[in-house]
């Protein structure tokens, strides 16, 4: 049966949403964009295979590239999450530092 882009995309999004739970909202946009790209390429590869314009060996290489792309996208999301968490933590530390200095009356910290 031929791959359908919309079904494939929906399956990927559903699987990721169920797997990530509350963390899904934070990465939804980038993840969905990545899945759209992956789904379209998988449909394209399948079409090429069906038409005989690509061998199985070449199709496997192209699919492997899609898997690599997802790993890269996941690393991007992880990096952006770390940046956001770092900024939040440092903002909190700065607030506490300011409060301590104000309470004491001079900049001990």
């Amino acid at each position, binding site marked *: 049966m031929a791959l359908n882009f919309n079904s494939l995309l929906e399956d990927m999004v559903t699987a990721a949403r169920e797997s990530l739970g509350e963390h899904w909202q934070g990465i939804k946009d980038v993840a969905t964009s*990545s899945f759209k*790209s992956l789904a379209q*390429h998988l449909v*394209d*590869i399948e*079409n*090429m295979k069906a038409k005989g*314009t*690509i*061998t199985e*060996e*070449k199709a496997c*290489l*192209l699919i*492997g*590239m*899609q*898997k*690599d*792309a997802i*790993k*890269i*996208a*996941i*690393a*991007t999301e*992880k*990096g*952006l999450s*770390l*940046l956001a*968490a*770092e*900024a939040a*933590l*440092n903002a909190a*530390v700065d607030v*506490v*530092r300011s409060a*301590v200095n104000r309470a004491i009356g001079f900049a001990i*910290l």
Partner: protein
Amino acid sequence: MILYKRLVISIGLLIITGCHVMLIGAYDEVTDQSIQKIQNDLLSLIIKIEKDITDKNNQLNNYENYKADYTAIEGQLQSLIIRCNALPKYNTVVDQLRPFDSTIQKLEKFHKLGFQLSDTGSIRVIRETIEFDFKQMIILQNGLKRKSGKE
């Protein structure tokens, strides 16, 4: 209880010493520029292959004509991975570079199998996938740049 005490002491020390938390490495201009250089070289290679297929000059796409280009790009990428492995808290950037290295290896294998005139669809998928990869890497580099206040 012990863990809680350690956490409180750690946060206290951070506040006292004026240190900031670092969960991910600082922006590194050499890394950013290296990614841009690899992007230019690799996309030039792919576009040349595409044009030769479109112009029906496919005999020019013989892998042997590109072997030196692949070696140069892979050399640049390996040097970059070595650099990023040495930078503090740069493992997330390395987590991008390693699968990207895998993609270039796959492209090279595909090229060794030979590009046919019927491979217009394949080369388009390859180009779009690699453009996607570079976009992801640039997104993270821009995030690191914003952190450093250099954007």
